[in-house]
């Protein structure tokens, strides 16, 4: 009700603005008239000139503007321009991305030579801010940009991967090092309890970034605070990442660029497991500890000398060096009225787990055409094909890496390789080589799409734009398992699953922008509307089995011996409709104000809760432009204070939450046959509505020493209310999934600091950038009567994490291990109030757990907040240097203060049975001779439940990693000749150095799709990041 009336008011307001702006002849003509009838006393002058860089090379595409007017042109391919000015008092402003803007008073000159110098800070840089651009200096929100060259360091599977360490406040969490593996991006912590991923906007169209070719990207902008993101209203709560792809430039001569890099990658660390001899010793000790009579048959295995021989290093069998390559090609150019860019990209990333692979093929065509005076048509079109060949690396029970750890090393890979008979595992984990060889898991995705727009500029200060985007994608998963004789559980039968899906989305944006300077005033206003709709349709087969011939060519359903019972399929669709507006005002280059408002209607909410209105306000003060500051500008070249406040929404929940549906479930067997079955599997929530984030940001931008040292610092306070969360239901409600509810409040507070020092004046040019950010978050309240906590992060069916009122999100919730019992008296003295032993089954060497709730027994209620999976600090350090054609760059990235739950300790150091091998850490187990250790005595029966999840599983997950280290050399023009504009060769190391105390495979473990979003840091044998060595070449002509 409330929203509705606001919407009505809002719509009315928009119509009024529209009417005023649109009414021809009134307002607009009046302004035009003023312009036309202005000071025109003098004869116009024609000015010609050339713009070069400090080396004397022509710069095409430089904006040349007559200051105070909207008259402007762009330099041609030779860097030349001609422009008409009113009189000799006119001032020409020359601006170009990455260069200092220069202003020249015409005076008596008619032929100008302008030398632009590189801008140390990029203060005049123009950044994408959502439905438009703004000068960086005029920004009032917290916005960060990433230049294209930062995204093409090393071989990155996706743009998301390349973002790591580039911007303060942006955390990139790699879910695994697997080729094609996912990445999670968080901007300023986790506002919500569900999906915290930011909104991605590519060339103005909302979509994803993972299929983009990193080298197609011109720039990326991250909108961090609410005021900046507010123009995206309902979906901006987790921040916005705006991607602008490369385009041809006006009057640019045709240029061709070819880049390739080739390399090898390998595991940065080789895990190990116990040798057969050590395993025998440990297992025999466990049997002895458990009092297992030597007459029992279990001893036979260890007494058999054949089993004391180490035959296999499973990790070496599954982790092998792999070849990687990345190649791209582009051609671009432009004339007076048209420009274009065409590019091709190819990535071939073999994984370090044998047989895994990710390939991506990209094609892009972007062009712009001025089809009539002031009327521009443009399009960005791209095609992407990617193919992933995976392996089950993360499965808790059959993952390749956990299988490599838990398989006995006396087992050979092959018993009889000629007849393809594998060495049989002793436990449930399959022979990892058999598992890799027998699984043919592939995923193929195809997509095409882009946008086309018409832009009309009129009256010199209005721009009308209509932009239609469309994307189509299809995905096919195929999972064939072949028989691996002797390979172990699950490999005794072949089977095939396939599923197929298509998705289509379209977006239509219409905007009208007003941009005008009046003397010292600069006012920009934008009004717009947007409609968006999408549908996802899927089809999944059951399982076909018993293929009589497993040849890859015959791995299709038609050749199965047993067909699937039935196929399943359905669809999901959504629609979003929005109205938005922005006004920004700048006075005298000193005072900056901006306001945004957006109203969104989403099909995800019932009609009476559908609309949300999200406002924001921000202001900035460029103190350094004040007169009183002039004395200081030698020291402090630029100083700006910023403040912003805004509200944003989040609707990242599945569709149709306000309907309860009756859907297909597994078919039972009735009358001997499968029978189609349905059930209501979810309750409806008719009251579901927007999650709202309110964020305040205070920031400072400063430059010192003639822009050599620059600094950006922000403090933010983010409060998310009406959080969309699935509060787990008791099972006695009989449904599998809990409905989303609006419940609770999360607070995120933090700071971000970015400092850059650069020296570009000498032949040795270098820059150092350090980024640090800190976020502290907390669940303020659950907002639901009764519910105070949600258990999260299920590892092997037991929760290890919790979300609870008053506590930070993402904390581990396990028992506190006080240490190991050193002797019987310690066990006997560990008594409760009634004098009973708290751990009656313990013997020396067992774990002593803390009875935190003092109820006299150790139980689930003794679990406590044992530390956060979120880091206290994330930091990165970027260094670039350039000397006489040689260049060098490196990026360090790291976290501090986060914990990792090392799941592989279950089985690794806490024995799970005689069928499994263990980690080398178990050698440091407690024995009467080795008492100062944290590894408990070895036992299989484990009557004291040492293996219960406790602080013994938690480790410090802090790390510092040299993500990239690059050395390059650019050949001199004298060597390459005039035709070749650039020839550079380089050598890049990725993940060369990792510093961490974490003992698992890799400290970057991310989250698993199965896990609750807010518990990261549960390591169940994640695919390690690879260390790679690459040689590359950049070639432009």
């Amino acid at each position: 009700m409330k929203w509705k009336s606001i919407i009505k008011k809002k719509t009315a307001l928009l119509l009024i603005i529209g009417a005023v702006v649109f009414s021809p002849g009134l307002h607009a003509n009046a302004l035009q008239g003023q312009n036309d009838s202005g000071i025109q006393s003098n004869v116009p002058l024609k000015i010609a000139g050339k713009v070069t860089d400090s080396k004397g090379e022509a710069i095409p595409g430089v904006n040349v503007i007559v200051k105070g007017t909207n008259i402007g042109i762009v330099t041609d391919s030779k860097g030349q321009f001609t422009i008409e000015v009113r009189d000799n008092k006119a001032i020409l402003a020359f601006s170009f991305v990455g260069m200092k803007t220069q202003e020249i008073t015409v005076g008596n000159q008619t032929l100008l030579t302008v030398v632009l110098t590189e801008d140390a800070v990029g203060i005049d840089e123009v950044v994408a801010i959502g439905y438009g651009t703004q000068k960086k200096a005029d920004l009032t929100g917290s916005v960060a940009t990433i230049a294209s060259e930062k995204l093409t360091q090393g071989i990155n599977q996706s743009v998301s991967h390349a973002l790591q360490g580039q911007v303060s406040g942006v955390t990139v969490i790699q879910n695994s090092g697997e080729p094609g593996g996912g990445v999670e991006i968080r901007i300023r912590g986790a506002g919500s309890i569900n999906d915290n991923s930011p909104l991605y906007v590519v060339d103005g169209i909302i979509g994803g970034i993972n299929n983009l070719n990193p080298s197609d990207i011109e720039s990326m902008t991250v909108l961090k605070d609410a005021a900046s993101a507010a123009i995206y209203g309902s979906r901006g709560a987790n921040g916005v990442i705006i991607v602008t792809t490369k385009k041809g430039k006006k009057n640019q001569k045709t240029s061709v660029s070819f880049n390739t890099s080739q390399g090898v990658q390998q595991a940065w660390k080789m895990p190990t497991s116990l040798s057969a001899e050590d395993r025998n010793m440990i297992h025999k000790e466990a049997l002895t500890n458990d009092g297992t009579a030597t007459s029992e048959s279990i001893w036979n295995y260890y007494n058999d000398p054949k089993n004391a021989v180490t035959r296999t290093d499973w990790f070496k069998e599954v982790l092998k060096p792999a070849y990687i390559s990345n190649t791209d090609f582009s051609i671009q150019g432009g004339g007076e009225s048209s420009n274009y860019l065409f590019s091709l990209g190819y990535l071939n990333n073999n994984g370090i787990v044998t047989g895994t692979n990710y390939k991506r093929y990209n094609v892009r065509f972007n062009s712009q055409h001025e089809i009539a005076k002031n009327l521009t048509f443009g399009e960005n079109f791209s095609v992407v094909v990617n193919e992933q060949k995976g392996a089950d690396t993360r499965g808790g029970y059959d993952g390749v890496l956990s299988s490599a750890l838990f398989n006995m090393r006396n087992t050979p890979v092959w018993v009889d390789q000629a007849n393809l008979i594998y060495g049989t595992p002793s436990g449930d984990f399959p022979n990892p080589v058999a598992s890799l060889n027998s699984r043919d898991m592939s995923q193929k995705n195809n997509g095409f799409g882009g946008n086309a727009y018409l832009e009309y500029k009129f009256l010199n200060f209005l721009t009308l734009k209509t932009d239609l985007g469309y994307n189509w994608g299809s995905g096919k998963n195929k999972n064939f398992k072949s028989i691996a004789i002797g390979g172990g559980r699950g490999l005794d039968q072949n089977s095939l699953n396939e599923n197929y899906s298509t998705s289509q989305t379209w977006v239509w944006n219409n905007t009208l922008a007003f941009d005008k300077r009046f003397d010292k005033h600069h006012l920009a206003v934008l009004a717009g509307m947007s409609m968006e709709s999408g549908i996802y349709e899927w089809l999944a087969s059951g399982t076909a089995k018993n293929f009589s011939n497993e040849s890859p060519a015959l791995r299709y359903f038609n050749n199965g011996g047993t067909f699937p019972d039935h196929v399943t399929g359905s669809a999901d669709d959504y629609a979003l409709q929005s109205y938005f507006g922005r006004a920004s005002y700048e006075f005298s280059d000193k005072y900056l104000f901006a306001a945004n408002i957006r109203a969104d209607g989403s099909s995800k909410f019932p009609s009476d809760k559908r609309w949300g209105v999200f406002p924001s306000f921000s202001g900035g003060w460029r103190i350094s432009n004040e007169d009183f500051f002039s004395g200081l500008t030698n020291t402090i070249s630029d100083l700006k204070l910023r403040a912003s406040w805004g509200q944003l929404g989040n609707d990242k929940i599945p569709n149709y939450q306000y309907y309860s549906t009756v859907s297909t479930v597994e078919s039972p067997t009735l009358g001997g046959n499968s029978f189609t079955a349905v059930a209501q599997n979810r309750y409806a929530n008719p009251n579901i509505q927007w999650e709202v984030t309110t964020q305040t940001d205070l920031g400072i931008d400063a430059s010192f020493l003639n822009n050599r040292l620059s600094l950006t610092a922000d403090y933010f306070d983010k409060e998310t209310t009406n959080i969309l969360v699935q509060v787990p239901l008791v099972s006695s409600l009989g449904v599998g999934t809990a409905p989303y509810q609006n419940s609770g409040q999360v607070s995120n507070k933090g700071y971000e600091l970015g400092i850059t020092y650069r020296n570009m004046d000498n032949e040795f040019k270098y820059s150092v950038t350090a980024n640090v950010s800190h976020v502290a978050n907390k669940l303020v309240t659950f907002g639901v009567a009764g519910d105070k906590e949600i258990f999260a992060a299920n590892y092997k069916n037991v929760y290890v994490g919790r979300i609870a009122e008053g506590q930070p999100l993402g904390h581990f919730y396990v028992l506190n291990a006080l240490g190991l019992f050193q002797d019987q008296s310690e066990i006997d003295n560990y008594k409760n109030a009634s004098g009973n032993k708290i751990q009656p089954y313990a013997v020396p060497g067992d774990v002593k757990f803390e009875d935190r709730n003092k109820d006299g027994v150790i139980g689930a209620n003794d679990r406590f907040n044992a530390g956060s999976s979120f880091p206290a600090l994330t930091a990165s350090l970027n260094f670039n240097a350039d000397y006489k054609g040689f260049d060098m760059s490196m990026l360090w990235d790291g976290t501090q203060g986060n914990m990792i739950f090392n799941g592989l300790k279950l089985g690794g150091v806490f024995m799970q049975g005689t069928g499994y091998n263990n980690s080398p850490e178990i050698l440091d187990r407690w024995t009467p001779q080795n008492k100062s250790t944290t590894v408990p005595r070895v036992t299989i029966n484990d009557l004291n439940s040492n293996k219960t999840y406790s602080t013994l599983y938690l480790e410090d997950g802090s790390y510092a990693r040299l993500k990239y280290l690059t050395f390059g050399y650019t050949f001199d023009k004298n060597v390459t000749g005039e035709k070749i504009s650039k020839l550079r060769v380089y050598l890049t190391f990725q993940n060369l150095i990792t510093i961490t105390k974490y003992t698992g495979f890799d400290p970057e473990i991310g989250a698993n799709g199965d896990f609750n979003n807010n518990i990261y840091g549960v390591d169940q044998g994640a695919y390690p990041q690879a260390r790679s060595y690459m040689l590359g070449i950049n070639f432009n002509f």
Partner: protein
Amino acid sequence: MNIMKKYIQITVMAVVLASCGKEFLNKEPHEFTDAVFWKTADQAESALAGVYTPLQGEEGLGGEEWCSIESFSDNAYMNDNYSDYIAMSEFRALQNNEGDLSRNSYVQYYQAIKRATDVLTNVPTITMDAAQQKRILGEANFLLAFSYYQLAARYGGLPIYNSTDPSAALTRKTEAETWAVIETGLKNATTQLEWAHQEGRPGLGAAWGMLAKVYAHEGKWSEAKTAAETVISSGNHSLFANYAQLFTIEHENESEILWGLGARFGSYPITPILMLPNDVWGGKHPDAVGAGWRLVSATEAIYNAYQPGDLRKAASVAKKGVDIVTFNGTTDTIVAPNNQSPVVCIKYMSPYAAAYTDWAAGLNVPALRYADILLIDAEAIMNLNGGGPGNRTTGVSAAAVPFNLVRQRAGLAPISAPTFNNLMYERRMELAFEGGDRHFDLVRWGLAAEVYNALSAEGTYKPKRTFIAATHRLLPYPQGEIDNSNGSITQNPGYAGK
């Protein structure tokens, strides 16, 4: 100017059009919503089928938990390393943090309960063939009661699902109230089902039989006797001559099976693989090594307890290095090195006799058998005639007929006046490894402490246990349920926590 006007007009039109298109934001699920479902007989049938689905889950009827519950008795032990479950089965657990077997079976039974309740609520509103409607309601009532029975036998008083009052799911009813709900469901089913039934579905025999079993739990002996004898006198059910063959795919649907949960090749339930050793021959013969899940295995105690000549012994258990079994096309002495005890449960191994085929072999689960009901009848008669757990040596000749039908089928000599001790033996051997009857029987008879506490340790796999009736007659309530209810669901007496 004219061009500009045109564009302005187009934009204004677009804005106006967009705001008018209210329909644009209405998106409906591409699945049945409540508004369009529950209209036809076919929909009623598929919703009823949905009640069977969770029962066939991995931890449902015939699944892992169903096999594992046997380890609470003296018949079996957990061979796989489910330490939290083992702690419960050894009466050491202070809480139920077992998140796999116990929790998932709880979840699956409640899914069946909710779905059965939905059928009972909605199917009466459908215009359809009256006989079909009655059968659907009868099956739903039976499955509802059967699911509550499984949970009540384990956990005691339960939350009773109510489709119009979700808060009912947040508190436990008393045990008496819970058993009354079970009784009502079965009584309703007896008015709705027919004797004739399809394979995999319950008929009237199952409804009356289950009701007899529930009455026995409640100690309502005359009602139990009447209910059991309604099945016996119907003439629709009889014992199948060969005990061993009852657990084969060929004979899984004999009239003795009052209700068998349907299984088909390649799909759950998967009882045979759960009990199969993961290395039957120890390398002596070709074997699908690693295939068997060897989740639960038999104790030496039950092996030694069979009376000489009891045909059920060879059908149920085999001793390593002693007994001969047929598996994967070979007949030889069983080796099974990865089973900890000297004895293996082979009751469900027949589907793999000729060859190892699939982890889901397609053997129906014997959920309720006529033999069980005959013994309930005998037990009721004993209790009504001076016998019973408190009077175990008194012979009751009136119980001889139903009792000896079962006993003689097993190849043993009839007893003219069977005692309660005789009955205990028959129930143990007849129903061993069929979902925990031995344990539930001992608990309801009040004899669990006496029987379990008298046993000495058997290897390290079946240590000496201490059963305290006040606590251990019920399992600790799943902790996740207590957590998710924020404590409004309470723990059973004697266990730790809220």
